[in-house]
Structure formats: structure tokens, C-alpha cells
């Protein structure tokens, strides 16, 4: 079981959280000009790295807030977590 550092509640057991997948996805702005491929990219294509991964988690059985985590997908090590829309969000 992962120990996940909620930015508000501190380290808590994974079973208190639900995983929200890749972080920093924003809905495409102009729908009319959007190609099918771009729309598919937004809906279905996700980063799936073997290594460090930025993802979002929901502390659903705790403070009920969403936040971001950077976790390694082989070792499961978590090296940071931060509130959404804060300065740590990377846009790569």
C-alpha cells in the first residue's frame, strides 16, 4: 500500500485516496476548431511513462481535496506532492 502525502493532512494510507490519473490536463479551449485527433488526445491519450510520473490524487476519505503527486512508476517512490494550480505545476 502506498503512503501518500496529502498537502493538507500529511502521510496517509492509499486506501483513503482515489487515483485521478495524469496531472495537468486542461480541456481544449475552442471546441469548434478542434480536430478529431486533438479531441481524442484530450479524451483518451495519457502519458504512461516508465519512470517519474505527475498524477492527481483525491483524498476522498479525508479532507476531500484534489492535489498533485510526482511518483515513480517502477519503485513507487513519491518525491513530492503539492496543491493543484500552485507554482509547482510543471507544464512539460
Amino acid at each position, binding site marked *: *500500500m502506498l503512503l501518500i502525502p496529502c498537502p493538507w493532512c500529511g502521510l496517509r494510507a*492509499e486506501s483513503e485516496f482515489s487515483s485521478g490519473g495524469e496531472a495537468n490536463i486542461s480541456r481544449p479551449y475552442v471546441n469548434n476548431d478542434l480536430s478529431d485527433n486533438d479531441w481524442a488526445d484530450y*479524451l483518451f491519450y495519457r502519458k504512461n511513462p516508465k519512470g517519474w510520473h505527475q498524477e492527481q490524487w483525491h483524498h476522498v476519505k479525508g479532507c476531500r481535496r484534489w492535489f498533485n503527486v510526482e511518483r515513480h512508476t517502477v519503485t513507487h517512490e513519491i518525491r513530492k506532492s503539492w496543491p493543484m494550480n500552485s507554482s509547482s505545476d510543471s507544464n512539460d
Partner: protein
Amino acid sequence: MTRYSALNLLREAGRLHSGWPEAWSSRDPKTSYDVIIVGGGGHGLATAYYLAKVHKISRIAVLEKGWIGGGNTGRNTTIIRSNYLWDESAHLYDFSLRLYEGLSKDLNFNIMLSQRGVINLAHTENEMREIQRRVNSIRLNGIDSEILTPEEIKHFVPIINLSNKCRYPILGGSIQQRGGVARHDAVAWGFARAASKLGVDIIENCEVEGFLISNGQVHGVNTNRGIIKSNKVGLVVSGHAGVLAERAGFRLPIESKPLQALVSEPLKPFFNVVLMSGKVHVYLSQSDRGELVMGAGTDSYNSYSQNGSFQVIEQMMASSIELFPVLSRLKVMRMWGGIVDVCPDASPIIGFSPLKNLYLNCGWGTGGFKATPGSGYVFAHTIAHEEPHDLAAPFSLKRFSSGALIDEHGAAAVAH
């Protein structure tokens, strides 16, 4: 290669089994091939076998980074069935089941197919209605499927708890009598042996690290054992599909997650079907050695480590005890995980990639063992004819842009 037969078994018994030849020959890679299959799991080996057998292609290599069948093929709970909801899936999975029915004979290798029946349970009125709807649409596709009352389920599984005082009482279910289990290793070994006999080079400990690409076309692969050229490369690497796609410069609508399973200590035979419950999430069968084999859902997060979180195991055991309270003191012997390649619509991707000469067969996720022969057959056709097999056509990568998804989430109430 010696045929496996009663006569040869008798002869070998007479000389203490000293004369059996190796089942497939291990080879060093040549510098080029007509077709390279990346990934020596069941699907890759089946593809190579049908390329050689049906399409008479002679220079084929299967490149496997570890040992054959060491991926999800050797890690799954071996449930086979074809009772899928949508026409596209029903046709593909039933084609595969029919190939399974003749496979031991075709490969001259006993894959220990046991069509003992697969039962899906319903625990709520809504689930019962859903199962009725599914049984009807499955039957319209000519696939066997029946509704069961709780008493009929008890007939198949005498130790099941039918009390209506529990949290999720059993209201009924469905059965596919032709469903069952097979020996997973035997499927990999049988395909490897039969392919090797037809001249396919099976090359273990050979990891593909990149691709030779020019003008949007693939001409070969870079491996830890050197460059190997080919103008047709099939990618059949399950959980690592995304890693290799990235090396080739494109993305896939796939996320890789751990799926765990476990076996218990051996018990006397008491349970002769496969039982699946989506609500009380677990699926169970009893192996020939008497162990209970259990599996459930994937872990929620992406991962490439072949183990997941403990609470998933705890939940599947709790579910088993809900169905069979008599198992409460059962001991677990082993647990393990595999990395499954999950598509947003829980259906596979079979066909062209964004690069010419590179073909995809991935996204089988939590349920591809049952599709092994069918997947290999239609993928071999797709590679040989450079045109999707009719059964594979709906499963193209393009469906994610066109919107023609094949939504098999909860195909029969659970992931498998």
C-alpha cells in the same frame, strides 16, 4: 522434433525419458527477417505460428527480452470465455474460443483446456436485469449463455453461501458452459514448439531498445544483441506497449497498471467451475493441484513494477469469504502481479500504427489470455496482407478519433 503421442511416451518411458529432444530450438538472431515479432508472450508466439502456418512466411523471428511466457501469459488466472456484449468482441473472442477447442490437436501439445463452465453472479436486481440483457444479446450472436437461479448455482457450487442475510445476497447469475480454463504455460510452450517446428526463430534474452526509422517507415529494430532488419515489425509487448511506442515516436491510448492474483494452499477438489462476481469483486477457480486461484481488479495507479498494493489482495480475499464463508481459514501460498495494458474502452488495439511497417497488437489489458489464438490468427493475417482481418478491423487505433469505441467495461460484470 518428436511428435507427442502415446507410442512415443511409451518408448521414452522404456528408456527413462532420456531421448526427448528440446521442445523448441533457441537461436541467435540473424541480421534480417521477413517479419519480426517483438514480445514472446502467447499473442506474439501465436502470431508467429499462424504467419508460418497459414501465410507460409518463412523467415520470422520472435524477440523476447526475458523468457517466453514470462509476461502476463504466465501470470494470468487463465479464464477463457466468449460471452461479450458487443458484436465486434463477441465475434473475435468466440473465434478465439473455437480455435482453443482444437488447439491441443493442432499444436500437438496438451494445453489442458477444461471447459468446466464460467458462472457470473448477480447480487442486486439491477445486476440481474443487466445479466438478462447480456445473455440475450450474447445468444443472438450464436454464443451459448444461460440464466441460472440461485438453486441452480448451488448445484454447480455446493459450498456457496446463498443466505439472504448477507450484505450482497446472490440473486442469480449466468453461465457459459463452453467457458473454462487452460494451462497458461502450455499455451506459450505449445505455440513456441509448433512455431519453431515451422522454422520460426525464437530468440530469448533479446530486448528491443529502439527502431530503425526513415521517412515514417520502420526498417528494423535495435536490440541488446545488435541491429536486426525487417520491413514488417509487429509489437506484441502488452504492458510495455507505451514504452516502445514512445521509442518509435508516438503515443498510445493505453495506461499500464498492476493486476494481481494469488493461489491458496491445495485443497481436495470441491469446486469445478469458474466463478466470477463483479459486485463482490473476485473471480475464482480451483486448479488441478487443488489450489484456489483468485483475481480481481487492477490497482488504480500506473505502474511497471510487477506488484501492486496489499489492500487489493485483502479485498479479493474478503470477497471470496463473502461467497464461501467456509474458506475463512484458508492460507495463501503465493501472490504476484503482471503489468496490464488498459485501453479506455477495455478493448484491444489490433492493426496499423502511425508508422508504416509497424503493426500493433496490444491493449488486451486484464482479459487477453482467452483471446491468445484468435488474436495471433487475425494479427498474422493483418501483417501478411497489410490489411486488417475482418474480425480485427473494428479494433483499429483510429477508433479513438472516429469515436467508434467498443465499450467492454464490465463486459460480463467483471474485468475478465
